[in-house]
């Protein structure tokens, strides 16, 4: 579904990504992990078009997407959330979701004639809010929600764009144990809707529990990939996370 092919990215003298290639297969819950500064968010920003790769390319459903502006990539079916939540704080919860439903309309003259408040949209928005456990809060301003719920709202808004691939940047950060368990449940539901997930995460227990496939980055390079169990036993991965000769046990 998504192919990242030999992607490199440098910021001035800093090389954030060095020839990374990997593939996300349709229907998977795919994790992208690695220590801080490994280049994970940079990779996300390249996939969804905020950054252009210095070299290499990204293909989605067989078409090259690197170089397209992010709103075009959103239109093709890639949605995302952000490491630092970026809901629309002054809009109500349901308006955030409704705003997400206009990707076809935002590029047409329809912006001048169509309202997001039609029955069909509202019904779909309420379904998404129910899925994410936000239905009762639909009329609250997004900014009044605690961070855990804002993360869910971001997911609901991303799903509102009817994506084929959903990129989630550290969805479990700032969540308590119960919320994290609910998030894993939500991941599976989303997958069952036919949406492929690629996510970045630091919480290893969560990642290993929910992911079908894991790609590991370290210092901008791919150092391992495979099923969660294979990856967690990989010596290079252990080394990357704990450092050489470390005596700390995981």
């Amino acid at each position, binding site marked *: 579904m998504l192919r990242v092919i030999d992607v490199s990215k440098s910021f001035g003298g800093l090389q954030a990504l060095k020839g990374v290639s990997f593939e996300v297969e349709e229907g998977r819950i795919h994790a992208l992990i690695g220590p801080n500064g490994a280049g994970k968010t940079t990779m996300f920003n390249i996939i969804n078009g905020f950054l252009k790769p210095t070299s290499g390319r990204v293909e989605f459903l067989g078409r090259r997407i690197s170089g397209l502006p992010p709103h075009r990539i959103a239109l093709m079916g890639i949605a*995302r959330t952000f490491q630092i939540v970026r809901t629309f704080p002054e809009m109500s919860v349901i308006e955030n979701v409704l705003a997400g439903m206009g990707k076809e309309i935002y590029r047409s003259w329809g912006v001048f004639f*169509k*309202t997001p*408040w039609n029955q069909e949209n509202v019904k779909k928005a309420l379904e998404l809010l129910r899925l994410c456990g936000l239905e009762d809060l639909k009329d609250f301003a997004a900014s009044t929600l605690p961070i855990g719920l804002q993360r869910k709202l971001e997911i609901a808004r991303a799903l509102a764009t009817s994506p084929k691939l959903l990129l989630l940047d550290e969805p479990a950060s700032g969540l308590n144990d119960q919320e994290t368990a609910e998030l894993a449940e939500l991941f599976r539901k989303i997958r069952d809707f036919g949406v492929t997930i690629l996510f970045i995460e630091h919480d290893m227990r969560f990642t290993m529990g929910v992911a079908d496939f894991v790609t590991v980055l370290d210092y901008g390079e791919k150092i391992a990939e495979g099923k969660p169990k294979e990856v967690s036993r990989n010596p290079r991965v252990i080394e990357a996370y704990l450092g050489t000769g470390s005596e700390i046990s995981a």
Partner: protein
Amino acid sequence: MTLDYLYTLITFSNIFIILSLSLNVLIGYAGQVSLGHAAFFGIGAYTSAVLAVKFGLGYGTTLLLSVLIGGFFGFLLGLPSLRVRHDFLVLATIGLNFVVVALFKYIDFFGGPYGIIGLPAAKFFGKELGTGGYALYTAFWVVIVILLMIYIEKIYLRYGFEAIRENEDAAESIGVSVPLFKIYAFTISGALAGLAGNLWAYQMGMVFPDDFSFPVSITILTMVVLGGVGTISGPILGAVLLTFLPELLRFIQDYRLLLYGIIIVIVMMYQPSGLLGRQGILRKAFKR
């Protein structure tokens, strides 16, 4: 206070309602701060003045072209806004205001510092409107613009505007083209300011460069900020208050800009969303 004088004040108030609502599209809806809004006002007014005085065109034509050309210049200013953000955009819009006024002043075609005088009175079906009629006519446009704002608040356009105001990255991630929506905001805002310019030119019968100088931009901004950025009722209230108050309290006239500066500071400190904004004291009073 004679009746004519009152009508004239109502006309001014109407024109500034349109100006502050048009600036509100830019600042309140789309989050693009402009400190040079009087430039578009002036472009609209000069368009009408030039076309009426130099080319003898009728009122309907000058009105239409003031709106179109105002919108076109809004579009043009929208282009650099794609490259410069926030504080730099503010500076760019101030610069634009000075450039436009300078062009009016130094290009003979625009009449130089003495402006263009001798606009004929606007005629409707061959009849001239008196001061009262013209006040009513401008009120008609206020109603149209308010209806337009109510309409905009309901359609996808506003959701795109809010998205780019709140967060440009998040906006792009849901399919909103940030450049396109900035262009929309500047164009609509410019066109409505152009309308206000036309109404002004025919009210005064003449146009002067200084009527569109930087202090006028600050006046419009103060109206929006005082009333409530991002609302419809706020800019209307701001425009009415700041048109009538200085007339009632004549001694303030000379210190207008000082007053506006103080108002902006006080509003920012104690009523950051404006009198009729989300947390405004007047909004709360009405709710009770």
